[in-house]
């Protein structure tokens, strides 16, 4: 009833190629954006700094992984490594370049991660599938090892855990959770928009062609070298920016052991559970993997309080989380984004059955 496209005509090419052709979608996204911007006025510091900031940041990283895995079909396991590159590059830019605005440092750290990504993307020209995943694992281990091995990256800090510098731009220090949230929100929203446009433009079509059948794509004149490395570079750029934000806006420390293989796997799960090859899925998947354990922890400790052994509760939470992942993969292998799509299709007809 409310979600009908009847009566909405597209009369020009510009209208035909806009991101949200439906009026309802445009209204919806406007409301969401407005809410996102105004949220800090109602949310407290806990929600901002412990839930929303890490969620937005990890969504961005999942988006990067999704570009590579979902759109370009290159299975990669090195996303946390590229995040580490971004975090350490950002630290070093701010340390060594006097007065560099934070956003410039973040952009440059994304570029650093992209360059590293291109190097580690080279094997994709020869191998694919699971073999490629194993090859990209090397990046994960190599990067973390290199950051530990060469103390220059850590400015010779003996313990190897560096306190991140404050976020300074235009002479203002973005110190409060609210200000940090806005910085993250602006960067993530801008990059998500960019990703959406890339995905539905010629760039994304190139990726999808390579994903679906690379021989056919090559026969149609696509350069495999260019397309694959482009996907690796852009994906790593997103991961690098995400890593810098993760370290500076969330953890406020920079250390290699925050970017372990475990984080890479979690990002992989975010993409799979959220939905491969969808922008929205990255956000939904990040929310599920990041927030569900916290939700379980809060609710179980809230419900059972101190009456049941906390060790048992903690173990049960993990079991439930695992079962939920399995259930999701069985009932909806296409991910949370697919659920949203199905809901939209039902909404089109609602409240009628046909």
């Amino acid at each position, binding site marked *: 009833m409310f979600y009908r496209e009847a009566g909405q005509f597209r009369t020009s090419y510009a209208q035909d190629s806009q991101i949200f052709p439906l009026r309802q979608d445009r209204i919806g996204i406007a409301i969401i954006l407005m809410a996102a911007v105004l949220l800090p006025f109602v949310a407290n510091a806990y929600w901002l700094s412990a*839930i929303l900031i890490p969620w937005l940041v990890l969504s961005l990283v999942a988006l990067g992984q999704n570009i590579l895995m979902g759109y370009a079909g290159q299975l990669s396991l090195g996303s946390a490594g590229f995040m580490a590159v971004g975090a350490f590059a950002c630290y070093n830019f701010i340390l060594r370049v006097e007065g560099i605005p934070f956003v410039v440092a973040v952009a440059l750290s994304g570029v650093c991660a992209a360059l590293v990504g291109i190097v580690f993307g080279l094997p994709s020209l020869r191998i694919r599938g699971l073999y490629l995943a194993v090859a990209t694992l090397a990046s994960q281990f190599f990067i973390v090892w290199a950051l530990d091995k060469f103390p220059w990256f850590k400015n010779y800090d003996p313990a190897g855990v560096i306190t991140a510098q404050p976020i300074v731009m235009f002479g203002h220090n973005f110190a409060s959770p609210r200000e940090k949230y806005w910085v993250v929100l602006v960067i993530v929203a801008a990059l998500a928009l960019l990703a959406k446009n890339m995905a539905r433009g010629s760039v994304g079509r190139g990726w999808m062609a390579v994903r679906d059948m690379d021989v056919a794509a090559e026969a149609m004149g696509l350069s495999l070298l260019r397309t694959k490395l482009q996907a690796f570079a852009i994906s790593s750029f997103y991961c690098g920016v995400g890593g810098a934000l993760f370290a500076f806006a969330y953890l406020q420390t920079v250390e290699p052991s925050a970017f372990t293989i475990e984080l890479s796997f979690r990002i992989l799960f975010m993409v799979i559970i959220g939905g491969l090859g969808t922008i929205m899925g990255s956000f939904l998947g990040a929310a599920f993997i990041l927030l569900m354990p916290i939700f379980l922890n809060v609710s179980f400790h809230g419900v059972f309080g101190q009456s049941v052994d906390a060790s048992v509760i903690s173990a049960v939470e993990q079991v439930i989380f695992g079962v939920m992942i399995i*259930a999701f993969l069985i009932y909806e292998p296409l991910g949370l984004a697919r*659920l949203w799509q*199905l809901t939209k299709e039902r909404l089109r007809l609602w409240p009628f059955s046909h």
Partner: protein
Amino acid sequence: MLSKVVLRRGLGRMGVAGALLALVTASTPAPAQQAEQYFSIPSTRVGPYNAQGTGIYGGMIDYLNYVNIKHGGVNGVKLTYEECETEYNAARSVECYQRLLNKGDQKMLAWDPYGTPLAYAVIGRVAADNVVLAQAGYGRTDAADGRVWPWVFGAHSNYWSQIAMKLNFIQEKEGGIDKMKGKTIVHLHIDTAYGREPLPAMRQIAKDWGFNLVEIPIAPPGLEQQSQWLQIRQAKADWVTFWGAGAGMSGTAITSAARVGFPRNKIIFVTFGGAEEDMIAGGAQSKDTYVVAMVLPGKQFPLIADMEKVLYSGSAGKGNMQNPNRVGTIYYNRGVIAAVNFVEAMKNAQKLHNKVGQAITGAEFRDGYEALDYTSDAKRKELGIEGMIPGYKLSCRDHEGAGKFQMMQWDGSKFQIVSKDWMGANDPKMIRTLIEDSAEKYAKENNITLRDCPN
């Protein structure tokens, strides 16, 4: 079709859970008859470090409950706590820190995550939030300088003192510092901030004494150490200072050492990964391994014996330990001592700020923590912890305190104490200078003005 059902059911369940949660939170208001003081428990009950997490936080919770039951709280103020699972993951612990920061109209007084990476993750936040970071024997070492880190306390030791104590023990065994020249000591450590933490002090002592220091890292979680132990044998190591965490890693170290034939009585474990659970994981081969203790284990201390009686005897069932036999183990006793520090600091704060019988704030608690003083034997006896910890006091400048340990040796079923008395560095002044130099360097880099400290 299936997915529709799942969606509908899933949403329904989430609604139910949410409603249940709302109901529970709404039905437990605090009738403000008795003053309450709230503590945070950032526990680690799952994952590779669960033995440590359940023991330490079990001891901590038990002592808070014990004080409530036995003494009716701290001068009438009831102690409450809220728990959050960190999984020994720095990112999760930051979420826990923010979650537990406020409860009702109270802020948490102290944060004790029991993990060096976790302590590092919040060390920049505690001053602004008025929270004491109580990193008992772990965390950032140079935070022992109270002029630079007013909110961080390492009572009653840190990793630099500990490595210096281990080397002091080794030189005694070898027959003097002059005998150390040319010896090879391997620092076998987990490759995290925690494993690397003692290195600056160790390198300095190696230079001074002229022994050969070999650093061998192990990637976490450290369940594969074959190549590292072969390397140790090739290096013809005289001693190994083992800096690991988790029973899995500790057990692997012992079995790997046995496989290459490295004598266990030349391995010294760190306080953190040196508990009964770690030795049992190594089986019969653990016999003769040395372990450093910061707080002594055992039930012979009156406090632990009384806690067991009050909380566990008969069908009391008030204890937090799933396995009551673990009362009096290394981790349990260490948790109890951490909570004793909380309670003593709270008493000090009430006295200092004329708030006896009332709840206190973070700033007042900080003053009380800084005034911790266990130097008198009578005081330790009164608390029932005589012999469990060394006598020490904190001051404005010194946030470490004792810097002393005991050396224990595993006899196959329990620890035997082999050091004559509490033992520290061979040259404690040198360690203190290292700490203050490092803290001053940090202060200068970060434009922190040193707090003016009389002592």
